């Protein structure tokens, strides 16, 4: 019997980058286009090695503009596709991230975040691209962004990223900080049959009746035909109607299209968003953290409890759409919310927006160091 080479069932010792590549293969990714960049290069290297083994395509493009364009093309030709990059490349990809959002191309973009702006700190961890992930391309649109805090989760969330991109026909970002990407940990890869995979909805009507951008069902997501299937459909980055025809001078078409692109995510926010809640039920002080920072935060919360402080942790797994409800649930009774981030203030702005009445303490961190548990603990203790 031929082994399932895409799903390496068993226990492995991997880095976050490698686990992400294995997660992609397990999710059914069969096309990767990329451009080398620290600290994401290992994902491309692993995909170059592994994709041919499973009959998939690896291509090294001439730049990140091309990488992003190529994965949209491959997605429209029927393959689950991915690229991986870091800040400077993510900036270049914004152009075609907008195209993917506008033409509803399922695809996954991994951004291993380093320090910015510009070339910044190629080898150091950062969480400075969180707002760029949401707002990076021009115009109004919604995307989904996930943030792993362990190597195992880099594997799991890459699969989740593909599933969400297929379900909602939207680009999904895995925002991994450099620390998680280069951290080595044990990863358990399940059996292929135990991994739940989602595939894009296909048209149920014959070619003559197919409207490529007409949603079917309550989720506002249109079924997706692919090139070569006989549908002779047209897709464009211009404002278009349900048939895919450009209608750039119609306010109604623009409103219907843009509102649907946003609402298909906003209306499903509770289905999409995930957080991890630790000792939050009776918490009077809470930390909201994501990525590698949440590991120090967890340690700080445990130490605070040992000292008799009613502390809790809300770990954001989904960053976009922002898990507002998860925060609102405890915001009113929390005396203080501590938000440590590897940036100069990004997710904290969202927390301030949702938890309007809470006392919020922001802990920025730039450079190389990570937040220590005692730094976060100190902020928790200040409440007493």
């Amino acid at each position, binding site marked *: 019997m031929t082994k399932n080479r895409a799903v390496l069932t068993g226990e492995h010792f991997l880095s976050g980058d490698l686990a992400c590549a294995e997660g992609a293969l397990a999710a059914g990714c069969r096309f990767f286009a990329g451009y080398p960049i620290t600290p994401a290069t290992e994902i491309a290297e692993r995909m170059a090695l592994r994709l041919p083994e499973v009959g998939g395509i690896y291509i090294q493009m*001439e730049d990140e503009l091309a990488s992003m*364009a190529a994965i949209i093309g491959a997605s429209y*030709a029927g393959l689950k596709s991915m690229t991986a990059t870091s800040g400077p490349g993510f900036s270049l990809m914004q152009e075609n991230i907008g195209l993917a959002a506008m033409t509803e191309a399922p695809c996954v973009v991994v951004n291993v975040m380093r320090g910015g702006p510009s070339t910044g700190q190629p080898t150091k961890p950062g969480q400075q691209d969180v707002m760029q992930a949401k707002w990076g391309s021009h115009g109004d649109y919604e995307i989904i962004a996930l943030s792993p805090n362990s190597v195992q989760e880099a594997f799991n969330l890459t699969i989740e990223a593909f599933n969400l991109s297929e379900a909602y026909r939207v680009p999904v970002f895995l925002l991994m900080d450099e620390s998680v990407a280069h951290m080595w940990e044990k990863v358990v890869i399940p059996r292929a049959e135990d991994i739940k995979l989602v595939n894009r909805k296909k048209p149920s009507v014959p070619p003559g009746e197919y409207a490529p951008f007409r949603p079917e069902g309550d989720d506002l997501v249109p079924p997706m035909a692919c090139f070569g299937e006989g549908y002779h459909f047209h897709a464009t980055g211009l404002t278009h109607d349900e048939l895919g025809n450009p209608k750039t001078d119609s306010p109604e078409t623009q409103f219907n299209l843009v509102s649907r692109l946003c609402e298909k995510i906003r209306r499903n926010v509770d289905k999409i968003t995930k957080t991890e809640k630790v000792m939050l039920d009776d918490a009077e002080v809470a930390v909201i953290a994501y990525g590698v920072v949440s590991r120090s935060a967890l340690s700080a919360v445990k130490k605070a409890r040992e000292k008799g402080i009613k502390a809790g942790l809300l770990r954001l797994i989904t960053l976009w759409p922002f898990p507002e409800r998860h925060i609102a649930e405890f915001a009113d009774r929390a005396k203080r919310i501590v938000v440590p981030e590897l940036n100069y203030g990004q997710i904290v702005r969202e927390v301030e927006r949702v938890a309007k009445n809470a006392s919020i303490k922001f802990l920025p961190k730039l450079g190389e160091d990570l937040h220590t548990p005692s730094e976060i603990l100190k902020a928790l203790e200040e409440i007493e």
Partner: protein
Amino acid sequence: MVQHENIFHPMEVFLRKSRIPHIWCSGCGNGIILHSFTEAVKELEMDLDKIVVVSGIGCIGRVAGYVNMDSFHTTHGRAIAFATGVKLANPELTVVVISGDGDLFAIGGNHFIHAARRNIDIKVICANNFNYGMTGGQQGPTTPLEAYTTTSPYGNIEHPFNLVHLAAASGATYVARWTTIHVRRLTASIQKMLQKRGFGFIEVISPCPEIYGRRNKMRTGLEMMNWLKKVSTIKNFSDPAKAEVSREKIVIGEFVDTEKPTFETILYETIRWVQEKAEQGE
């Protein structure tokens, strides 16, 4: 009595009738290029289900919306990069990029040279109208030296690209240049390119009287077509480096028709080899 139901356009099966009339100005060469392309597809009796037309931004970029085939209108300059993903994901498809000189050679120049270098099986048809027509006639990478445009009001001070030389030097295995007055040769050339595997490139010098011509003493499509007729010289398989495009002379013809393994052939052979090796190891 005229039987109206019997009147049809010979190309209508290849076009999205709901999208006609097109946006192009009178005297524009884009319609001729579209006709030549559909004529070539018709002559070859190609399966319309297996053709994908990809375009970028600009006047000719709208062509993707007019063909009754799978089609995608990408961002500015990225048609070839998008097409690369399409071709590799489904190598059974004939992938044709139809776009303009500014789209393919200014903002998209990097993608063109790399796709040609790889010899990926993508067919590129470039409408060269010497300027950015859709934005109102600005100077671009093919605008002749000294020509007047809205952003070269004192005459263009930049040297233009020789596109067939660039394509040949980058590794394209089929390279030709025609004008919109050489319709039958253009159609035959597109047919030849569609039948051949590898990266193919056809430049079509195309009149833009409304935006470019009127600033350069050629106010009508007819004047521009007469000019193309007067200055064009066919020199098949001459040195593309010497194939000039100037006000006085345009060298046209086929310049390159060679064989070289295509990117996807090598890629899929590699994948097969890796898979066999993996199976043996199990």
